[in-house]
């Protein structure tokens, strides 16, 4: 560096020549480039497929065969496609809940537990009020399922707002509590007396089941999900509440100075988040399994985190990604027919997430040269 103050009359020596015309290249980080290009999610999926192909090949299987099997199983047949849609419903509802909470940087990773208690509450209605007419039965199940999920969300929100406990840990611990509670009721008080000792509640009657499309397993829960997404979009875009959420999301400090109660908002988003997962649980027992049993959710709550993240919290994106991941779950089931564990799909999900967060950041770096 040469000083160039003008008042100095020192003779400026030329800078030593570094020789040749090699410029030094360097990486520079530009934090203003927050919008990643549209193709990053697609590329993440492709790279994740490649990475997992290595593991599959290392285990002595042909990745191409496995992936083809997965894709055909999920989207190749009309049965597979409706199954994919069936799986997309809870993903959409839970993913939407996670997206709402994440709008203000509240990490709800407890959708799994919220879904479970929602399913339990809906089942409780069938156990304790078995002879209600169809409309009342479904309505009550929906109300109870939503309320239970919302309560579970509240149990995560209050420690965060009033005791400063990180909501990640709380919501996760509550997942395990919910799953143990589920085990308790299906092995204990709600066990079907005519179920040959199988851990599960009695079958729901037709009055307690959600209507389905024709002869498929696709149930009315899809409408719940789409309506919820529409409401989310309108609320975020056109209401004061949505505006406040966007404000907190953009700049929490400014929002606090503007007199917005962040505590109140954290509680509200967790109630919504839990409630939506509760609806997903109710729809799952009432629309798909028609009984409460172990393993009611093959990890919907965790997959939904990626769904929300991949969709960048965008309503339309949520619909697309939940169908995609529904397909991934169904594809995971279909590789079981060739003797592979369905955990392949979980592995893929983790890998997709890795590449996604890497891709979000990588384009912020630019190669610059020091002339």
């Amino acid at each position, binding site marked *: 560096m040469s000083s160039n103050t003008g008042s100095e009359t020192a003779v400026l020596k030329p800078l030593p020549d570094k020789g040749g015309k090699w410029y030094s290249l360097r990486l*520079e*980080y*530009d*934090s203003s480039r927050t919008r990643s290009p549209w193709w990053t999610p697609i590329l993440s999926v492709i790279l994740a497929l490649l990475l997992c192909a290595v*593991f599959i090949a290392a*285990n002595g299987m042909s990745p191409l065969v496995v992936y083809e099997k997965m894709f055909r199983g999920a989207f190749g047949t009309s049965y597979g496609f409706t199954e994919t849609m069936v799986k997309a419903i809870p993903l959409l509802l839970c993913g939407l809940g996670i997206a709402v909470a994440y709008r203000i940087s509240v*990490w709800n*990773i407890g959708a799994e537990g919220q879904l479970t208690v929602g399913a339990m509450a809906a089942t409780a209605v069938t156990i304790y009020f078995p002879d209600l007419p169809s409309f009342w039965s479904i309505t009550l199940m929906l109300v109870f399922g939503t309320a239970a999920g919302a309560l579970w969300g509240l149990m995560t929100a209050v*420690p965060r707002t009033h*005791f*400063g*406990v*990180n909501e*990640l*840990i*709380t919501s*996760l*611990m*509550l*997942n*395990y*509590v919910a799953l*143990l*509670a589920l*085990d*308790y009721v299906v*092995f*204990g008080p709600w066990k079907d007396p005519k179920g040959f000792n199988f851990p599960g509640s009695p079958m729901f009657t037709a009055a307690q089941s959600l209507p389905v499309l024709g002869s498929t397993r696709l149930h009315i829960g899809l409408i719940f999900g789409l309506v919820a997404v529409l409401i989310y979009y309108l609320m975020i875009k056109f209401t004061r509440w949505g505006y406040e959420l966007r404000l907190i999301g953009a700049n929490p400090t400014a929002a606090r100075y503007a007199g917005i109660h962040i505590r109140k908002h954290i509680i509200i988003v967790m109630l919504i988040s839990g409630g939506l997962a509760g609806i997903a649980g109710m729809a799952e027992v009432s629309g798909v399994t028609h009984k409460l049993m172990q393993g009611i959710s093959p990890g919907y709550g*965790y997959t939904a*985190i*990626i769904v929300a*993240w991949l969709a960048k919290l965008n309503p339309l994106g949520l619909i697309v990604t939940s169908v995609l991941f529904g397909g991934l779950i169904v594809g995971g089931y279909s590789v079981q027919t060739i003797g*592979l*564990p369905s*955990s*392949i*799909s*979980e*592995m*893929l*999900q*983790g*890998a997709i*997430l*890795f590449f996604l*967060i*890497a891709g*979000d*950041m*990588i384009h*912020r770096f630019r190669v610059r040269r020091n002339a």
Partner: protein
Amino acid sequence: MDFTTQLLIAAISAGTPLLLATLGGILTERAGIIQLGAEGLMLMGAVTTCIVYIRSENLILALLSAVVITALLGMVHSFLCVTLRANQTMSGLAMTLFGSGLSAYLGKSISGIPLPGVSPKLDLGALKSVPVIGDIFGRMDYLTWFSLLLVLVLHLLIHHTSWGLHLRAVGDNPATADVMGIRVQLIRYSYVTAGAALIGLAGADMVLAYAPTWNEGLTAGRGWIAVGLVIFARWNPLRALFCAYFFGALDSLGFRIQLLGSVVPSYFLKMIPYVVTILVLMYLGYRNRNKPSGTPESLGTPYVREQRF
């Protein structure tokens, strides 16, 4: 042996994996990087140990593989969080998902096969015949002794050496550390990697001392409990020892109560550690609401050296 001694033995055996994972978490987070991948790392450590031990029947090799594999995963986490400055929470979640998926996939072939042996116990000779003390210390295996030694080493490292000073500086105020000539990125990389390896060792300990066969998802949330324990122990190795054994005791208490023939269904007893984690964190949050919690100040914020454009 009376009930208390038995409980203490059980607490130590159940607490050791928690302790190792908590120490790993402390190392990682002291450097300012959040580690939420503990569950996935523990599972990967456990499954690697099982596979290598069953195939090679060599315990040392199995432990080494577990450490190496999880250290590599730790490097992935540090690459994402340190070099790319990605979202640390998300990276940890990805680690947990990927780890549980991959471990289930890899473990499919050895599921339910018993391991060729357990972790060997350190023979203390004459000490064994001493009541209580002999009962407790006479049945501890090498990994447990190692974890105790590690508590001491890490305590001295963090609080009484210049390396520890550098580590704390990087976790609290990386910009200042950088100005002082400490290599922030290098320190973060090393500690995140070492921490991940320790968490992997915790997974190995789970299968060697606790559940001598591989089952899908056998850690059952212990990785997450360890994440809570890091906060509970206020990023301090000595406290981590007591916290981990306390939770180990809770873990085994449910099991003991069952043996005594209690009326409470076992499912509720199994909930104890999870519920207590939440309650303890709430209590700590309430008690320390106006006090510093001991969190490394720059935990979770990536460090960017200023640059010209």
